[in-house]
């Protein structure tokens, strides 16, 4: 027997949970589903300094927990660590199957599935995942206590997570393909001033080598074309994110990069199907913009459900 809701939100990150707060307060029977615990990318971000309302910074973990608690306070249900094993999102009554056993339906669905770390696509990368290669500093930083590690990337994540990693590692060498960092100048300044951080610009990773665990990182100097093999105890990769739009593959057209185009009201071509957060085609992806999307999607969904229930 399928359980009926007014709104199902896929993804319990900032976009999904902001939507849940608004939907629940509008007295919509709301279900949020997530494959993990709530928080999305925020939960593994060690420190958030630019979310309005927190003049003293807030840990990603605490911010994520606060979002979830607020949604639940108004009656939204959050299903954690579930897998969507079946779905039918194209019609007026949308259906999801969770963990091969529970069926849920709703006239309106918001997809807020966010993004996952992009891989380099370099030989050895998948082999050493979890054996020296990581994409999450908060998750795995402690494994590299006193070690000499490398970070690949040059944006905010690479620079900020490198600073975070200095509390564990003996040295952190940032390897970046361009001549200068793309990160916020304030973070770059802090990184360059940190004695544990070294910088290798205009270099690209070409391979990962080792026996049972990662032992060497091969890089290429883009200026001289020279290949160098660097001994390493671990490599953290922060080269961007890729949108998680597998659910929407055959439901709505996907734009370049796998993102989804929507109207200003977060609508897709399918009535009652909305998209919010990092998965959308947009220029800037931040917690604040995700929260804005979630809000709009919930308000639009509320109007839609009201009109279609008459």
């Amino acid at each position: 027997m399928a359980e009926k809701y007014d709104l199902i939100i896929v993804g319990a990150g900032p976009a999904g949970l902001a939507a849940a707060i608004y939907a629940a307060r509008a007295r919509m029977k709301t279900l949020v589903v997530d494959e993990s615990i709530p928080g999305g990318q925020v939960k593994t971000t060690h420190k958030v300094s630019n979310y309005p309302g927190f003049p003293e910074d807030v840990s990603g973990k605490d911010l994520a927990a606060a979002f979830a608690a607020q949604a639940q306070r108004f009656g939204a249900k959050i299903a954690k660590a579930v897998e969507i094993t079946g779905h039918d999102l194209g019609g007026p009554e949308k259906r999801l199957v969770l963990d091969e056993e529970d069926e849920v339906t709703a006239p309106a669905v918001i997809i807020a599935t966010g993004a996952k770390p992009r891989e380099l696509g370099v030989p050895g990368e998948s082999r050493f995942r979890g054996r020296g290669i990581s994409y999450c500093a908060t998750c795995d930083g402690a494994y590299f206590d006193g070690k000499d590690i490398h970070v690949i990337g040059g944006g905010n994540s690479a620079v900020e997570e490198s600073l975070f990693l200095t509390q564990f590692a003996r040295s952190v060498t940032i390897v970046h393909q361009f001549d200068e960092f793309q990160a916020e100048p304030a973070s770059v300044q802090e990184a360059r001033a940190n004695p544990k951080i070294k910088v290798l610009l205009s270099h690209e990773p070409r391979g990962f080598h080792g026996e049972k665990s990662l032992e060497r990182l091969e890089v290429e100097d883009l200026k001289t074309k020279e290949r160098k093999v660097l001994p390493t105890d671990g490599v953290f990769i922060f080269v961007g994110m890729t949108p998680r739009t597998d659910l929407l593959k055959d439901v709505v057209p996907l734009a370049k990069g796998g993102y989804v185009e929507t109207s200003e009201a977060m609508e897709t071509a399918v009535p009652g199907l909305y998209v919010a957060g990092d998965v959308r085609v947009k220029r800037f992806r931040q917690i604040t913009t995700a929260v804005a999307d979630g809000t709009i999607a919930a308000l639009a969904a509320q109007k839609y459900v009201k009109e279609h229930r008459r």
Partner: protein
Amino acid sequence: MSDHVKEITAQDYEREVLASKEPVVLDFYSTECPPCEALAPKFDAVADAFAGRARFLKIFRQASRELATRLGVTGSPTLVFFKGGREVGERMTGEEIKKSALKAQVESILE
């Protein structure tokens, strides 16, 4: 934690993992680890499903550094599979471990 999941320490490794008659799924976990938290209910459910046929063990990484290093484990969670005292199959790591994938992996090891 499910009745079918047992917590062990590094001292128990030889006896509980290598000398086990049934295949073993060993979960290296840490605290402050959202992917570990997300895995826990799935691990419990799969342990219940395979009760009696495979053993599901958890080991706290921070208290077992030497063993983790010896096995080349550098991320939490990491699931390592054992049969007849040797490692078998592919390890599973990180946030994206799905219950269905874990079930399938255990099935293939039992064959």
